[in-house]
């Protein structure tokens, strides 16, 4: 999801713009997701299922929720496939040399644009670098940027959003206004402006910018989640029994409110990966000698007609990676959505 509004990309995970709309998407889509023909097993009106035990409250006990989710997930082929892809990506991000022996930065201009040949299954780039090696090493950048940006956003967003939701009042109102302001700035645009002055070739400025511009989305999710958990009787009961705010937050609210944040952060991860590639493509994200799919796609685009392989391999890797994280987020959301159980 390259364009500035990261909004729809991550199922509204990181809605750069469409506050309401994208958020609705994130929540409502989950509600009626691919349950397909199995549908709800109960006819409306009368519910034969009513009789059955385990109707389940809106928010289950944390352990039950997670255990149920895990049981569902293990049996879901989409989860298994996307999880395997992600594990593979993480492994080659940590040790790319496991499957790629070469050096991504060693290039031989004499072999520029050459196609596939033994030992070099993906061919060569315009600078004569090995496309296979570069594609493998590119995973590291994407995974690092995606994971760190998601963690950062989740941490900052949920702390600020959670506290605002829990305590309400002035800080809550202030946070809402700040969130509105950030929603007004298209993310790619902000990236262009902020990153155009950066000369560093590390991933840190890119991650920093992503966290800076997208934490409000996560804070909104966290705030909403805390607000809805706060309404629950068990929280009121704990409060009535004299539990301190800290205890309420950590022991009663946190375990129940954290699920939506995790789901949205997972989906946002795919958004960040696509965003990094987009910014690198525009020339303001990572800069050589960093190895990034976005840089490679950008470099390959002038030659797309004669040597499409230079573009297709990193683009394919990027698409598969983004898809894996989107699907993971999707199935995790379905599994954690108490409305569906």
């Amino acid at each position: 999801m390259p364009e500035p509004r990261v909004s729809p990309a991550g199922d509204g995970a990181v809605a750069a713009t469409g506050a309401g709309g994208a958020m609705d998407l994130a929540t409502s889509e989950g509600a009626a997701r691919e349950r397909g023909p199995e549908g709800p097993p109960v006819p409306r009106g009368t519910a034969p299922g009513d009789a059955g035990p385990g109707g389940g409250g809106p928010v289950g006990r944390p352990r039950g929720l997670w255990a149920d989710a895990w049981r569902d997930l293990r049996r879901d082929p989409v989860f298994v496939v996307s999880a395997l892809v992600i594990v593979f990506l993480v492994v080659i991000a940590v040790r790319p040399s496991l499957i790629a022996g070469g050096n991504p930065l060693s290039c031989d201009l004499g072999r520029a644009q050459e196609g596939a040949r033994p030992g070099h299954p993906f061919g060569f780039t315009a600078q004569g670098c090995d496309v296979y090696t570069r594609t493998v090493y590119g995973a590291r950048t994407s995974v690092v940027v995606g994971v760190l940006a998601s963690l950062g956003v989740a941490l900052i967003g949920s702390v600020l959003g959670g506290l605002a939701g829990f305590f309400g009042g002035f800080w809550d109102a202030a946070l809402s206004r700040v969130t509105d302001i950030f929603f007004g700035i298209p993310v790619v645009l902000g990236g262009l402006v902020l990153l155009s002055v950066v000369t560093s070739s590390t991933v840190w400025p890119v991650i920093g910018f992503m966290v800076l511009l997208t934490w409000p989305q996560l804070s909104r999710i966290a705030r909403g989640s805390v607000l809805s958990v706060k309404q629950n009787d068990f929280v009121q009961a704990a409060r009535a029994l004299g539990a301190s705010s800290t205890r309420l937050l950590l022991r009663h609210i946190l375990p129940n409110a954290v699920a939506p944040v995790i789901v949205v952060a997972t989906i946002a991860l795919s958004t960040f990966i696509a965003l990094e590639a987009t910014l690198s493509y525009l020339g303001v994200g990572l800069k050589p000698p960093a190895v990034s799919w976005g840089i490679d796609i950008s470099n390959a685009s002038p030659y797309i007609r004669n040597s499409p392989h230079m573009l297709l391999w990193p683009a394919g890797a990027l698409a598969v990676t983004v898809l894996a994280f989107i699907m993971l987020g999707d199935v995790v959301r379905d599994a954690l959505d108490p409305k569906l159980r």
Partner: protein
Amino acid sequence: MGRYVTRRLLQMIPVFVGTTLLIFLMVHVMGDPVAGLCGERQCDPATEARLRQEFGLDQPVWRQYLTYMGNVFSGDFGTAFNGQRVIDLMATAFPVTLRLTLVAVVLEIVIGITLGVVTGLRRGRPVDTSVLLLTLMAVSVPIFVTGLLAQLLLGVEWRLVPPAVSAAAPLDELIVPGLVLASVSLAYVTRLTRTSVAENARADYVRTAVAKGLPRHRVITRHLLRNSLIPVVTFIGTDVGALMGGAIVTERIFNIHGVGFQLYQGILRQNTQTVVGFVTVLVIVFLLANLLVDVVYAVLDPRIRHA
């Protein structure tokens, strides 16, 4: 209704100020505006000092912001790097991007809603599954890749459309770029419509409509769709602003000289006036689109109107 709109307008003012201030600050961080003004050459100190004073750059940032906003509201957006007035750049750039956005939104509405309704009513059937797969692909392939591939296949290999859009950017040349620009949103409109239709199809009032003996097409168009499209309209509305701001990548691929192109140039050349001016207008467009969404929302859903 009038009060509702007024209230929304008032709520927008702090957001507008905050967003433009934030952009202003970001651009301020971006670099020295004077350096950009002299083009590639180094300014001589005397000129630089004169320029600084002329642009009020010796003032504190908040004064600069106020001055700038004052100018903006009197129609003065400043001067671009090549001496052109920013407002003139806008006059050529915005119509182009507006057309591109229009094409994208129309495609979103026509294709996205149609696919969404069809799949929403046929959940689990082959057509549903294949459309879902398509939307997943559209979402996971970044737009710059989609754009490059579309350009390669449709423009270069099969010669169905010109690979680059001409300067006038007529509507027919914008169809493929518009489709590329819309592709991700299109997938989302499809999925959102599908979910919404499928959910509402089980709603009690739809069952009532069937029990009233209404023909199927009437049940769908008058009862089911009207309710199902409320969230979709919201999404598309907020997406208008996002698409306009987001056209940078698409415009770059297809060489369209619209807002994204000018912004990109402005950023490359570190021209503060261009960047802040364009972004300010984009923010206004975004906020107006949101207002429009709120109004449409209220029209579609009487529960909001009377709240």
